[in-house]
C-alpha cells in the first residue's frame, strides 16, 4: 500500500512462539505498526521489534514501562489487539479478560488462543457485534490451515453439513510415527517431547482435549451451537497399541484422531489409507461436507510459530481490508 493512510496500530498480548512469529512477520508489513508488546512479565511500549525479539530470545526482560497488558488494552490508542497468550481451557484466563476488555474498548481482536472462545464463544461474539468491531480466530483451528475464513467467506454459497478432521499435530505425529517406525506409544511420545512436538505434560493433546476445543469453536461458529468443552464426547489416543496400528495397516487402514463437529465427538477412527484425511506427521486436515459443493478437504501445518502467525496476520489484514 503506497498511499498516505496512517498505519494500523496493533498490540501483541502474549509473546511466546506465536507472538514472536507475529512480531517477526509484522516487521515486513509497512501498513502495520505495533504500539505495544506484552509478555507475562511486562510491557514494551512503542517497541523496536527487532530489539524485543532479540531480548526475548536471549531470555532478557522486554518491559520498558510500568503498564500491564490490561492497561495497554484499555488505555493505549490502537486498532487491533492480537491476543496470543497460552490457551487455558478451564477458565479461559488470562486471554478471556484480555479479549473481553479489548472488545469493550471497541478494539478489533485477532487471536490464536482457544481458551476464551471455548469458555465464552457466544458472549464474546455478541460483545464484538455490540461494539461494532471484529473478532477473528482463524489460527485457533488448524494453525496455518485455512478453515474458519474458508467456510465463512468462500463457502458462503452452500450449507455446511459437517466438518471433521485431524486437528492435532501432536497426536497425528505420534500415530504416524508409531506405525511407520514400528515404535510403541511411549517411545514415540518421548521422542516427540524431545523434538518439541509434544509438551512435557502431553495430557492436553493426547487425551483429545485440544481437538475437542477446536470442535467447540467450529460447532459454535458454524452450527449455531452454544456449547463448551463439557458437551464433547472425548476419547484420546493413549490406549492405542502398536499392534493395533500394524494390524490395521496390513489391511489398508490407519488410525487417526478425528474431531467430528456434527457429532460433537473426538475419538480415534479407522480410515482407509486412501482417505483424504490420511495426512502424515504433524499435518492437520479437515473435510467440510457441504450441501451442494460436495466434500472439500484442506490440509496444512497445524502448529509452528511462523505458520500460526501467518494465520493471525491474515486475520489482521482482512479486518483492515474490510474497513477500506
Amino acid at each position, binding site marked *: 500500500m503506497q498511499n498516505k493512510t496512517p498505519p494500523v496500530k496493533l498490540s501483541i498480548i502474549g509473546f511466546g512462539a506465536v507472538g514472536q512469529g507475529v512480531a517477526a512477520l509484522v516487521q515486513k508489513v509497512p501498513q502495520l505498526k505495533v504500539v505495544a508488546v506484552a509478555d507475562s512479565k511486562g510491557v514494551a511500549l512503542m517497541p523496536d521489534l527487532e530489539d524485543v525479539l532479540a531480548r526475548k530470545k536471549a531470555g532478557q526482560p522486554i518491559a520498558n514501562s510500568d503498564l500491564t497488558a490490561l492497561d495497554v488494552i484499555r488505555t493505549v490508542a490502537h486498532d487491533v489487539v492480537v491476543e496470543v497468550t497460552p490457551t487455558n481451557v478451564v477458565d479461559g484466563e488470562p486471554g478471556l479478560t484480555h479479549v473481553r476488555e479489548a472488545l469493550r474498548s471497541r478494539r478489533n481482536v485477532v487471536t490464536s488462543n482457544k481458551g476464551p472462545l471455548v469458555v465464552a464463544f457466544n458472549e464474546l461474539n455478541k460483545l464484538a457485534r455490540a461494539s461494532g468491531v471484529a473478532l477473528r480466530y482463524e489460527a485457533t483451528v488448524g494453525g496455518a490451515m485455512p478453515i474458519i475464513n474458508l467456510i465463512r467467506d468462500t463457502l458462503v454459497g452452500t450449507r455446511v453439513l*459437517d466438518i*471433521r478432521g485431524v486437528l492435532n499435530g501432536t497426536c497425528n505425529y505420534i500415530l504416524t510415527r508409531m506405525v511407520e517406525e514400528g515404535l510403541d506409544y511411549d517411545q514415540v511420545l518421548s521422542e516427540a517431547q524431545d523434538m518439541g512436538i509434544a509438551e512435557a505434560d502431553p495430557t492436553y493433546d493426547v487425551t483429545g482435549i485440544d481437538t475437542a476445543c477446536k470442535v467447540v469453536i467450529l460447532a459454535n461458529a458454524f452450527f449455531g451451537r452454544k456449547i463448551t468443552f463439557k458437551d464433547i464426547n472425548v476419547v484420546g489416543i493413549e*490406549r*492405542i*497399541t502398536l*499392534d*493395533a496400528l*500394524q*494390524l*490395521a495397516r*496390513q*489391511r489398508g*487402514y490407519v*488410525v487417526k484422531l*478425528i474431531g467430528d463437529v456434527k457429532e460433537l465427538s473426538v*475419538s*480415534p*477412527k*479407522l*480410515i*482407509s*489409507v*486412501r*482417505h*483424504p*484425511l490420511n495426512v502424515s506427521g504433524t499435518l492437520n486436515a479437515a*473435510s467440510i*461436507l457441504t450441501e451442494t459443493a460436495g*466434500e472439500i478437504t484442506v490440509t496444512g501445518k497445524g502448529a509452528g510459530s511462523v505458520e500460526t502467525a501467518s494465520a493471525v496476520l491474515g486475520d489482521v489484514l482482512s479486518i483492515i481490508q474490510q474497513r477500506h
Partner: protein
Amino acid sequence: MRISMDLELRDTPGQLMHVLAPISNLGGNVTSILHHHDKKTARNTVPVSLVFEMDEQKLEELQQKLDENDVLIVRMGKMRLRTKTHVLLIGHIIHTDLRETIDAIDGTGFAEVQDLSLSMPAIDSPSSAFVTIMATGVEELKQSVEILKDIAQRKDLHVIEPIDDRGVAGG
C-alpha cells in the same frame, strides 16, 4: 450352508418345537431365532426369523416336514451378507472371553464375524484385534457394531470404529 428363513407360527404354545425338531433331526444347527411377537399378523400368527446351518441337500426334506407340521414358510434363502465393516479392539480380549464376544455378533442372525486377526504381546499387556464384521444390510451392520461396543464397554475393551463413510473415495 447358512440359511435364513422367515416363518409364521400359530400363536399357541409349543409351536416352535414343530420347527426346531425337524432341523435338529436333519443335522442342522440353529444360530439364531427371533420371535416377532410385536408384529403379529392379521391371521393371528407370529412371524419368526431363523438362521441355521444345514446341508443344502436336506433343505427340500426340511420344507416337507415343516409343511406337514403346518408351519408357513414365508421366505427362505441363503443368508447373504452384503455389508462389511472393520473394527479394532484393544484390551484384554482373550481373558475376557473372546468366544462370547464373537458369539454375540454371530448370534444376531443378521451379522457375523467374518475375520479376526489377533496380536498378543506379553501376558500382561493388552492384545489388539482387527475384526471384520459382515451383515445383511447397512442398518444390521450398524446394529452389530453397537452390540460389539456394548460388550466392549462391559469388558473394558477399547473399540476403534471406522470413520462414517460418506461416499468419499477410499472411505
